[in-house]
């Protein structure tokens, strides 16, 4: 690991100033960053510890939504009664990720910015267009059974690893960011970039941007919502496919629905085509299957990951049927 300096400022302005000077990274929980530093994938010369900035809070907004401090530990957010009662899919998504130990360290802001677990990205001895632009992507012909079927490019097929971000995407979360000269709010829908020919660029953020909070707008029907994760062992593994869903029914007709997919794409994948197809339709397993098919029509699977299409279609039918109390 490269040697590094360390600072633990008490004000966000100071933290941003330090990182804006270059060759620096923010340190929050460290569960991903410290590991990537050990692997030689991340090599900052200065770590700016942001755990003294007072970004650890979960509060109710006047409109009934939530504001979550970016430094809130995953376990605290999952245990928040506001989240458990109002947005159960978010608690379930957080608890589906990592382990008890890791969730006690990891923060909400860090979770959004965690890096892909593509094995080529994490191995500094291998080519990887995300880590070393222009070096190539061995995953296309190599180990890709768990990589992207949607939104990928010929340069990169990495998936975004977060469970939490899938629920936040379904909930229309808004990210508050502090940059050197400005503070801005970005909807999560515009936060991530698809890889295209620049897979090294994962967000539209300024290089020194500091996430300070995440807002979740009110969504009464999210009280009946769920997160379903499918993985290769029962616990403590990244998803092969996942979905966050909430549905609002009136007399058996879908009034509104939220659906996001995880582990299928380089970004949390909001299934807007499926949502559109379902609004106004009777809630039925057939309608749920057709909606998933409409979303997944854009899938471009490779040799070993086409199974994800059937996997996530079946999970969508099961989850939406369960929330609607119809028999799949």
């Amino acid at each position, binding site marked *: *690991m490269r040697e590094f300096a360390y600072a633990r400022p008490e004000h966000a302005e100071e933290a941003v100033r330090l990182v804006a000077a270059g060759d620096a990274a923010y340190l929050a929980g460290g569960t991903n960053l410290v590991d990537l530093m050990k692997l030689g994938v991340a090599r900052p010369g200065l770590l700016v510890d942001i755990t003294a900035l007072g970004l650890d809070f979960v509060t109710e907004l006047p409109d009934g939504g939530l504001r979550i401090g970016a430094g809130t530990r995953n376990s605290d957010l999952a*245990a928040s009664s506001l989240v458990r009662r109002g947005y159960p899919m978010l608690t379930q998504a957080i*608890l589906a990720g990592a*382990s008890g*130990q890791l969730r006690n360290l990891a923060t909400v802001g860090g979770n959004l910015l965690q890096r892909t677990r593509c094995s080529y990205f994490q191995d500094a001895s291998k080519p990887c267009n995300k880590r070393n632009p222009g070096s190539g992507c061995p995953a296309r012909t190599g180990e890709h059974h768990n990589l992207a079927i949607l939104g990928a490019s010929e340069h990169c097929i990495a998936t975004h690893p977060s469970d939490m971000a899938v629920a936040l995407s379904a909930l229309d979360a808004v990210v508050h960011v502090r940059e050197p000269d400005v503070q801005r709010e970005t909807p999560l829908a515009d936060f991530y970039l698809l890889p295209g020919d620049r897979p090294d660029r994962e967000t539209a953020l300024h290089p020194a941007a500091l996430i300070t909070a995440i807002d979740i707008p009110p969504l009464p029907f999210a009280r009946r919502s769920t997160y379903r994760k499918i993985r290769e062992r*029962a616990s403590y593994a990244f998803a092969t496919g996942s979905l966050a869903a909430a549905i609002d029914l009136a007399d058996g007709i879908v009034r509104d629905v939220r659906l996001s997919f995880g582990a299928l794409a380089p970004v949390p994948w909001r299934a807007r085509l499926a949502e559109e197809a379902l609004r106004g339709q009777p809630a039925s397993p057939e309608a749920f299957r057709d909606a998933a098919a409409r979303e997944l029509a854009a899938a471009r699977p490779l040799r070993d990951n086409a199974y994800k299409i059937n996997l996530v279609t079946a999970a969508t039918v099961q989850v939406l049927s369960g929330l609607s109390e119809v028999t799949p």
Partner: protein
Amino acid sequence: MSEASTSSTVVLCVNGTRHRLCLDHRTTVLDALREHLDLTGTKKGCDHGQCGACTVLLDGRRVNGCLVLAISAVGKQIITIEGLGTSSDLHPMQQAFVAQDALQCGYCTPGQICSAVAMLDEVRQGWPSAVTEDVADETIKLDDTEIRERMSGNLCRCGAYVNIVTAITEAAR
């Protein structure tokens, strides 16, 4: 803590004792315990947060010692397996592991025990888990499925899981 320096003199509070150490910033809590304080009860397994052998309590919460930089633990209380009990005065969780034969080689055991102690505290606080049916319910019924899910961050390559679950169930009574 100068911004340019790559090492610092820090005070770490471990098992109630304050230690003044000069540490390279790259030093993790795990390495500080083992290499600088001779507290070798905490084990290095994967060193990447995947096995749980290095689990210690940081301000009462279980964490992976291999992923926490020692300098970021300044001002916090670190409790290791040595701080939970001694051979003449075992912690109830240690007693339960012995009584239930919840180990074979023993390498993962300190991490399992630290993790289990903090896990029971999480249950007492009503924290749900990925297998809790209704996450809004603040009363947790700690059955085998809950214990297995909540302990999934601690691997045991000998496969002593069955007796580990029994030991934790016993200690939880």
